[in-house]
Every structure is written in structure tokens, then in C-alpha cells.
């Protein structure tokens, strides 16, 4: 009897002091991935607000997936203040979205976002947000985009889910800490719609139709949601400086026009958090509409080290 107990305690004690163990329960409760949402075109150095009429933007997201994996399946809502540069959604800091880890060793290429509601105030109708009545119009359900030919690759116009490509194929490593940044272009991308279909309030506010023109009297305003995604491992990033108003970086061989919003964009000539181990094409533009990007300069960060600064 006593021998049994002694043996049992010895086994436990041995395990207690084995040093290869990791804190697995801590690992599963805490995430190595940080998911950040921003309402800006720029990943850093966002431009100030142009004068706008609505004062609030309300966002309700059901779930965010990566290549079909439900790593962020908790619903979250955000009430953001438009005319305030201190709101983290618009000042470049971002707001966090709860998420779990991704599968170790799996390669990820895209993010899928399930938007439930997008509401601007500044209109007369009442909408339910956070289970309460608020003054504003949920234009998300009218963002249907009809196109003459069904192009399976053209994901940009579908909002449920809205699929956003990552800047590069990421092989997830459980030993690293990642930041996934999803940028919904709200700031300086708002338009007043009047004279629309009788089912829609008059006027109401939604995203500008610069991507896909909306005809007067139309019921649908689809094709104008612009979202970009960027992902990087902490402590594996460099900084690139290039003179210009807006600069952006895409992986060498790709084009900024491949994206609704390029993965890394700066409004002040400094691109932060550019992942090392890749080669990047850096473009300059005078305005923030698409297609205005000039010729690129290639910056090879394949053998760069964390914290490197490249000036071009």
C-alpha cells in the first residue's frame, strides 16, 4: 500500500519538475493573434477628417474567418464618433476584436468578414443597434451588387461574407505573436444619397459610390465597401520611408489595384510594420483614390532584420 502511494507521488513529482512542459491552458485562453479593426484607408498616419454631416458610425460584425476557420466567431459591435480624431477607430490606433488562435502550420491567404449592420446617423429613420432603437439607417442590406457576368474571382462586392486577400500567404506559427489589421474605409469615404428608391430614406448616408456608380432611383448601393487586410508577426517588421503624401506597399509582383485597399498604406510617408522575409513594391500617390499610384520602387526585405529602416 505505502509503496503504491510513494510511487504515485514520485510520478507526480517527476512530472511536476519536468521542464519541457508548456502552459497549455494559458495558451488556449490567451490568443497569440491580435485582431485590430480600423476605419481608415491608411494603416498608419491617417489623414484628418474632412467636414462630414453624420456624427456616428455604428458597426455590427457577426464573425470573422480566415480561409474558413472560425477563429473570431464572437459577435462584436462598435459605436464610433466621426468628428473626433481621438476615436481609436479613426486615429490609427484601431479597436480590438476578440479572437482565438489559428491552426499551427496552416497557410492562410484571405479573411472573410460577416457584416451584420453598418449604420450612419443623420437621417430620420430608426434602426435597432445593440438591441436598442437608434436614429440612423442600416445601409448594409442594400449593398447588393448585381453584375452582368458572374466572375468568381471578383469578391470585393459581396458583404456576407466580404472576402479580403492577405498581402502574402501566411504560414501560421504558434510560437509567434501576430497582428491582423482589418481596415474598413469609413474615414473620408462618406456620401449623402438623395432621390433613391422609395423604400430608402431621403436623405441617408453611406459609403461613396466612387467604386461602383449608383444610379438615381436605384434600390441598391452595392460595390462600394472597401476593406484592406494586413498581417505581420511582432518583432519581424521593418520601416520604409518614401517621400510622398500617400505611400503604399504590396508584395513584389502584385499591383495596388489587386486590392480594394492596399495592405499597407501610410498617410505620412512612413510605412510601419512591413513584414521582413518578403520583397515589397512601394508606390506613391498624391490622392487616396485607387489607380493614382505611380511607378514602384522595390525594397527587398528578404534578409532584413527586425527594426530595420529603409529610406528610398
Amino acid at each position, binding site marked *: 500500500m505505502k509503496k503504491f502511494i510513494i510511487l504515485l507521488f514520485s510520478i507526480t513529482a517527476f512530472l511536476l519538475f519536468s521542464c519541457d512542459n508548456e*502552459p497549455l491552458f494559458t495558451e488556449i485562453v490567451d490568443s497569440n493573434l491580435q485582431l485590430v479593426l480600423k476605419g481608415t484607408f491608411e494603416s498608419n498616419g491617417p489623414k484628418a477628417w474632412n467636414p462630414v454631416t453624420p456624427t456616428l458610425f455604428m458597426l455590427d460584425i457577426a464573425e470573422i474567418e480566415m480561409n474558413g476557420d472560425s477563429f473570431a466567431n464572437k459577435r462584436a459591435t462598435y459605436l464610433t464618433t466621426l468628428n473626433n480624431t481621438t476615436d481609436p477607430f479613426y486615429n490609427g490606433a484601431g479597436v480590438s476584436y476578440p479572437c482565438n488562435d489559428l491552426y499551427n502550420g496552416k497557410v492562410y491567404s484571405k479573411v472573410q468578414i460577416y457584416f451584420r449592420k453598418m449604420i450612419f446617423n443623420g437621417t430620420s429613420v430608426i434602426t435597432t443597434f445593440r438591441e436598442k432603437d437608434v436614429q440612423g439607417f442600416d445601409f448594409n442590406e442594400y449593398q447588393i451588387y448585381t453584375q452582368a457576368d458572374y466572375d468568381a474571382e471578383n469578391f470585393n462586392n459581396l458583404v456576407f461574407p466580404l472576402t479580403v486577400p492577405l498581402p502574402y500567404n501566411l504560414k501560421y506559427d504558434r510560437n509567434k505573436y501576430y497582428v491582423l489589421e482589418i481596415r474598413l474605409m469609413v474615414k473620408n469615404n462618406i456620401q449623402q444619397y438623395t432621390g433613391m428608391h422609395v423604400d430608402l430614406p431621403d436623405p441617408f448616408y453611406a459609403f461613396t459610390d466612387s467604386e461602383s456608380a449608383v444610379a438615381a432611383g436605384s434600390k441598391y448601393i452595392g460595390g462600394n465597401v472597401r476593406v484592406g487586410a494586413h498581417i505581420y508577426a511582432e518583432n519581424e517588421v521593418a520601416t520604409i520611408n518614401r517621400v510622398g503624401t500617400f505611400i503604399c506597399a504590396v508584395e513584389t509582383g502584385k499591383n495596388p489595384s489587386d486590392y480594394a485597399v492596399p495592405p499597407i498604406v501610410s498617410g505620412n510617408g512612413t510605412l510601419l510594420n512591413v513584414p521582413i522575409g518578403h520583397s515589397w513594391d512601394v508606390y506613391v500617390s498624391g490622392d487616396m483614390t485607387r489607380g493614382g499610384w505611380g511607378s514602384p520602387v522595390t525594397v527587398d526585405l528578404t534578409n532584413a532584420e527586425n527594426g530595420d529602416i529603409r529610406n528610398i
Partner: protein
Amino acid sequence: MKKIILFNLILISVLLVFSGDLLARKKSTDYFFRPQVGIWFGPVTPMFELADQVDTSLGAGGYFRYNTFIQSLKIGFDSSYQSHSSDSTSEVTIVPVYGSLVYWLPLNFPINFQLKAGTGACWVEIKPDSVSQWDPMFTFGGEMSFPAGNRFNIGLRIDYHVIYEKYMDNAKYNGNFINAGLTLYLNL
């Protein structure tokens, strides 16, 4: 958790209804003091922070009990399996393997009540990380059972498992689980 409590209350009522007949039995505990082997299955529930990550599921296990020189004290060896999935990417699977001391409460009652405490090791696997290892664990719990003939016992057991990881510098949480189970065991 509410379901488990309700389930337990129903089971206790059923046991008490049947206990009237059992009172007529003589010395049913004589058989109970033999070595025993049994199986169990029932709801297994992660606790605290882990409860936000993974869901309750069904677990099952088996055990063996051997007498000691004290009649009301037995030594037990248990092992079980439980896998907790979730709607998200998180998943936890544990296989506790432990020894315990089982104390029979000397009550003059046809239902046998036992208390137990033990220690051992637990195999833990987590996803999406896909990492597994053995951790030290501690357990305590209680059991109630009534004899169904000389050979069988039917009962309810509740275990509280603590899978100990906080000895590691960067650990913030232990694994805590409450396992409830219907059990059937034989007096050998």
C-alpha cells in the same frame, strides 16, 4: 451547470424512492467491501476561463478499487477520456490517469456514500496549436451508490479535477473540470 444539478437531483430522488425496499436488505455492505471494477459516463464540464473557450461534452472512464487494511478505506485507480470542442478553433482533450484514496462514510443507510481524493498525471492536448503533454493533476470528489444484487452497484459520481500548470513561470491558469457520471461497478 444547471442541467447537471437537475440531473443529479432527479437521480437522488430516484435512489431515495428505491431505498425503501433496499432497507429490508441485510448487510448489503458486506459485498461492497470486496475489490471493485467499474465504468462511468456522463457530462464533463470545463470551469472558469476555460469554460469561455470550449464546451461541455460527454466523458467516460473506467476504474479499479482495492481494499486496504482499513475496511472503510480503499485505494482506487482511475482513467478516463474527455474531448471538448467549440464553435471556434479551440479544442481540449484530456486523459486523466490517477490513483486515489476512497473513504466509505460509515452511515447506517442503504445507499453507500464515499469521499475520495487523489493525484496522478493527465495527458492534455490542445488545438489549434496541436500540442500535447503530460501534466500533474489533483482530484477530489464524492460518490453515492446503491447495490443492485450482490454483484452490481449503480451510482452517481462527481469528480473535480485540477490539472496543475501554474508551477510554470508564464502560466496564468490551471485546467479545472467537473466530471459527473452515472456509474456501474462490480463487487469482485
